[in-house]
């Protein structure tokens, strides 16, 4: 099935302080008839996941205030479950190690294009399907996901 058709039923949250990336991705997804939520800071994003269940969170590593990994740690404490894509402009070993520990599913290095994001999303959704094939996955509640 087409990626975007599947995504239409999912809640995707983008956490990115760069307005140009927020704007461009929102416009791109809108063009594909999907909506994504966007937050400027980790603090804002935490508020959002408290009130909503998200399926996928695309988060920038470098953020003002709490950084991307700190956000993931706090989200873990809130027992929030979602697929994680980490955006970084400058990857270092400790960051990657910490990200793995926090269960990050995909890394995307900046500068990135839509193609990079699409590939990452496809891989995440495929895993999800395979997981579904073996048994019910708790987090999958979206009706459009299957």
């Amino acid at each position, binding site marked *: 099935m087409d990626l975007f058709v599947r995504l239409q039923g999912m809640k995707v949250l983008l956490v990115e302080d*760069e307005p*140009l*990336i927020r704007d*461009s991705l929102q*416009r*791109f997804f809108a063009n594909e008839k999907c909506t994504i939520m966007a937050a400027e800071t980790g603090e804002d994003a935490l508020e959002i996941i408290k009130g909503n269940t998200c399926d996928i969170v695309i988060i920038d590593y470098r953020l*003002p205030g709490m950084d991307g990994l700190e956000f993931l740690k706090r989200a873990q404490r809130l027992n929030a479950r979602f697929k994680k894509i980490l955006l970084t402009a*400058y990857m270092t070993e400790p960051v990657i190690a910490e990200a793995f520990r926090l269960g990050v599913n995909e890394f995307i290095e*900046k500068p990135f294009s839509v193609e990079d994001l699409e590939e990452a999303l496809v891989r995440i959704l495929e895993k999800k399907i395979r997981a579904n094939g073996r048994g019910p996955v708790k987090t999958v509640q979206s009706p459009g996901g299957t």
Partner: protein
Amino acid sequence: MMPMDTEKAPQKVFSRRMRKSLLNILAFLGGAVLLSLVTLLYTGRLNADFPVETSLVLLSGGLGGVFALRWFLQIRKSREREANLLMVVRSMRRIHLRLTERKSRDELLHGICRILVEEGHYFSAWLALIDREGDLIRCAEYGLGEQFSRVRQGMEQLTFPECAKKALSGERLVVSDSASRCAGCLLPESDAARVCCTARLIHRDQFYGLLSVSFSAARKHNLEERMLFAEIARDVGQTLHLLELEEQRAVTENRFRALVENSLAGILLIQDNAIIYRNPEQKRLFGPLPAGFRPNAFTGVHPDDLEKVEVAYGRVSRGEAVSVDLDFRFYPQRKGGETQAMKWVFCRASRIEYNGRETVLVSMVDITRNRELEQIVRVQDKMSSLGRVAAGIAHEIRNPLSGINIYLDTLVKMYERGTNLETVGEILAQIKVASGKIESVIRRVMDFSKPGQPRLAMVDVNLPVENALSLCAAALRRDRVELEKELACDLPRCRVDAGLIEQVVLNLLTNAAEALRQAENKKISVRTALEKKTVVIRVADSGAGIQEGLRDKIFDPFYTTKSDGTGIGLSLCQRIITDHHGTLTVEESAWGGAEFVIALATEPEQEE
């Protein structure tokens, strides 16, 4: 006074008195006879009887004879004394001349003996230098030849001749004739016509050794002769003292010369604007100097350093300063006139007295290598700071670049499908914004790595501060920031680039305004003042302030806590102030916020 030949003294004195009386009687008789004859010739007759007249003539004639004898002897004596004095003067003059020739010790001692024989009436002379322990240091002779080597060997083994032994034991003058000669006497046994006279050489209670001469036995009892020799011995003692002083002076001078010649610093002496001395290191540093070189022409000094070198040299040579330190660049000269690679020296010019005249002493150290290393360190520091900030730059550029990529992908899809075309304009505008952002990051990085040289002028710093305030006044009013302004009047002028100072103050004001965005109590104060000879500009805010641990870090390039910051502003500010030889620091303001302090020297040493 002269305790020689004590047992023979009475006999000698007696015979001398006898001789004197006899001479007087003879003179008296001769005079009486002579006057009587003269009277006879004059009157033509001699009274047969013995009247009073005749007796008077005889008496006065006798007395006249005695006086004539006395007068004659006196003249002879004074002639002799004159000749002796002349001999002493001549000998000593020659000996002193010898001393100034700075010959070796042996040559000088031999010279003294030779002069005594040549100028005086001595047959031979020998001289021995003896130390405090009584050991022979060295000796010399003239007129003795082979005979002396035997005595020399004896003295080396501490066997001195009898006369020398007596003199060593304290007698000032020992006279020995053929009768009192010892077995080890220098004079040939057959030669009875000579006596030798030995004296201690002393100057100001310092014992130097012995001087011995031989002269005619006929003069043995001549008091004048002995006094003369004692005089000569005293003078030779003084000469030896001078020789010792001269040797000590030469040792000291050699020591200092060795220090100066081997000094790591180039040393130069200037008297009356002419170079009178250069040590080897100075010659190596500056290379050969052309004939008629004038120090105040400052040949080879780098044009940019010429002024300060002239000022420093002028101050020292005019006596306005005792000593001046400075560093400067110059091009060493070569023989062919071609110039060598530029060198840096650190130099100290001091006013000293040398050989009794005002002299400028210039000592300098080659710091070319240090300067090169400093340059390398500076470049490396820049490179490593660039490495540290690579993450910052990457973020700054990759974010807008990602935006452009995504916009382009969106545009491609829109174009393929022909849908949503009404938003294309908006997307293109956003792409322009993104590329503009990248451009601005690059420009700021370039500005950081190559800030232009400040164009310095004497300026009242209140001016750029006012300019910066007027630029952001509207923005501050809009943000409802309360501005306190307290600019000191009659501030001394500073040598600054007003445009750059304005840029720094504006940057600090913008930072302060941003720090107040979330604050309830919005206050900014700008103050200028003169504190300890520096002009200080303070920009304070009532924001959250800067944690103590971050106060150094905020000046690091690309360090930022702002979401839209580049981390370049403050580091550039600090760079500008450092270029002005000032400082930019941060403290806590009276309101608990941040207070940035710019300190500028009022008479800055703007060297570069």
